[in-house]
């Protein structure tokens, strides 16, 4: 059963005016440019992309932490963008967010207890702070502490406890482990998995780390310059990527195995600015696909099904680029030694 449905979501940030607000406005930043997906109840969608791809804007706009430019989000059948303030607040109880930076997302002047008590009071709920702490693996003694007395991993557990306090069905996890060390990251990922199983939670898991996403997600969507360029069940997208950007991204992840004989695709250049996206396929200036043509430079490829449940926005997704294809490019010669 679908719990969350996003239809053609658009979020543009207006360009700032130059000359201290007197000059002509700059081009708007098209952070999210027509994104659609659904998440079934109890499942995890991993939303992957590099900085500036628009993944965080998707998460925040969905929860209406910022107003959308266009599009629709249905949560359990409710149109999130059409609700008045009172009903939005009621709905917020069911959808929560865990932020990336456990250092800046907790109020330094509130104890852990006060932080966890606040959402309960707003939503007039009864709940025990000690039970919440126990659920996220913290001793009840932490209730009296302030954020500066906690480590990064402990703070992130408090952030998770705060999200859980109102008993939501859906949690947007926005890079929840990327600020943590690897040993602590594993603790928090295991905790998120346990909580999902126990409380039947639905997650949108936003991350730049493809290995982390593989570990936690049922389905994966890859974003590039405000658009989803590929979406598929996790096992499928890692085994058989269809979009050349996904292929390159997967190949670029350093593997903790010195014997890995992985062919690496090193993409040239940087991601273009979302204020001035290229015409045609947004990826074409960096695309190493051997079939790249004039069509890529002029026509935006639609996100369309290639096989059942596997969508890709590439004109040549039927014949996906292989690592061997990319090896012919000058940048991707095998490493010396």
């Amino acid at each position, binding site marked *: 059963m679908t719990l969350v449905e996003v239809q053609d979501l658009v979020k543009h940030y207006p360009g700032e005016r130059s000359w201290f607000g007197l000059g002509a406005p700059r081009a708007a930043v098209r952070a999210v440019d027509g994104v659609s997906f659904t998440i079934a109840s109890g499942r995890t969608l991993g939303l992957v992309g*590099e*900085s500036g791809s628009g993944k965080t804007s998707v998460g925040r706009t969905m929860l209406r932490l910022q107003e959308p430019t266009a599009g629709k989000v249905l949560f359990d059948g409710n149109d999130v963008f059409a609700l008045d303030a009172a009903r939005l607040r009621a709905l917020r109880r069911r959808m929560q967010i865990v932020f990336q930076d456990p250092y800046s997302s907790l109020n330094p002047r509130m104890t852990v207890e006060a932080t966890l008590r606040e959402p309960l009071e707003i939503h007039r709920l009864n709940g025990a702070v000690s039970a919440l702490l126990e659920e996220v693996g913290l001793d009840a003694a932490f209730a009296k502490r302030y954020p500066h007395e906690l*480590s*990064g*991993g*402990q703070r992130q557990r408090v952030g998770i406890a705060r999200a859980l306090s109102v008993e939501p069905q859906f949690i947007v996890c926005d890079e929840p482990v990327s600020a943590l*060390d*690897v*040993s*602590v*990251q*594993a*603790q928090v*990922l*295991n905790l998120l*998995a346990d909580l999902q199983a126990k409380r039947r939670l639905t997650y949108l898991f936003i991350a*730049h*780390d*493809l*290995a*982390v996403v*593989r*570990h936690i997600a049922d389905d994966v969507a890859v974003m590039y310059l405000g658009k989803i360029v590929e979406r598929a069940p*996790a*096992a499928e997208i*890692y085994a058989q990527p269809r979009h050349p950007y996904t292929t*390159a*991204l*997967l*190949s*670029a*992840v*350093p*593997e*903790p*195995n*010195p*014997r*890995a004989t992985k062919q*690496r*695709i*090193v*993409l*040239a250049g*940087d*991601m273009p600015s979302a204020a001035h996206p290229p015409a045609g396929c947004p990826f074409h200036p960096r695309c190493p696909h051997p079939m790249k043509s004039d069509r890529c430079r002029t026509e935006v490829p639609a996100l369309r099904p290639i096989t059942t449940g596997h969508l890709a926005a590439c004109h040549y997704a039927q014949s996906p680029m292989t690592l061997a294809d990319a090896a012919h490019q000058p*940048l991707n010669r095998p*490493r*010396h030694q």
Partner: protein
Amino acid sequence: MTAPAAPAAPAAPPVLLRVRDLKTYFVTEHGKGTARAVDDVSFDLFPGETLGIVGESGCGKTVTSLSILRLVPEPPGHVLPGSLIEFEGRNLLALSAPELRAVRGNQIAMIFQEPMTSLNPVFTVGDQIAEAAIIHQHLSRRAARARAIEMLRLVGIPDPDERVDDYPHQLSGGMRQRVMIAMALICHPKVLIADEPTTALDVTIQAQILELLDRLQHELGMAVLLITHDLGVVAGHADRVVVMYAGRVVETATTDALFEQPTHPYTEGLLAAVPRIDARRARLHAIPGQVPAATAWPPGCRFHPRCPYAWEKCVAEEPPLLDAGDGAGHAARCWLVTEPERRVPKR
């Protein structure tokens, strides 16, 4: 304390940079005591090789790298007497300020994690790259500018003749890191210290920068000290690895040996905690607890409170770096080396 063994004796090349018994402590505020950030660290760097220093936040890897070039702010920090940092036979810790300046940026150069905060926003990148060549090689401004353009080309910046007049804010993160590398390499240093050089970058840009470093190392023949928390980066780019925990070297080995036969339980746990892209694991192995504070390292083995194998001896007595016996310098600071039958997890 046993020194970490250098690669097998016979054909061992001369050591380029020898670090012995390095101790860098910090006096903390509010009288909380002394933070023993780097506590008796020893390793060797040989010409042309890449030595990875791996560890999590607070293990002392960055302070180690800063100590080499004496960049630790004093106070609150200080390198203790008895520490030795020997570069081509000279103890850097004993050099006068002008002598040290002749080494720093010239023969040993460094790049940092955050290229935006390490570049000066009010000078063009060309001026900043050229500065080292003017100081160390006494080039004229004009010649230094030409060298700067050449360096920008070497690090793969398109249109170097134009980019040389850009300010840092006009460049992307990946381009700024290339500028940092150009700055570090303009004097053709013998040692490059790269402290988390790709941590602030996206994965596709990280791949570009790592490939660039590999290529430049190959072309210029320098040794690289690669400091990182990322075991994947180490696996792909280091020849040998030093693993640090709680201010100590806990394991050292060739890269292949470290990944094939991690001997210290911390190394073993770290490898098991990394989510893998090549296979989905049902559950990640988490190391319980967290790194203790540098003002209060645990007695005995500093890892024992988090170790699944620890027994009485580990609490009572800290092990030295013990030779793991592969003949290639593999050593671990763990009593399991002498009592391997105890490698049975308690939990």
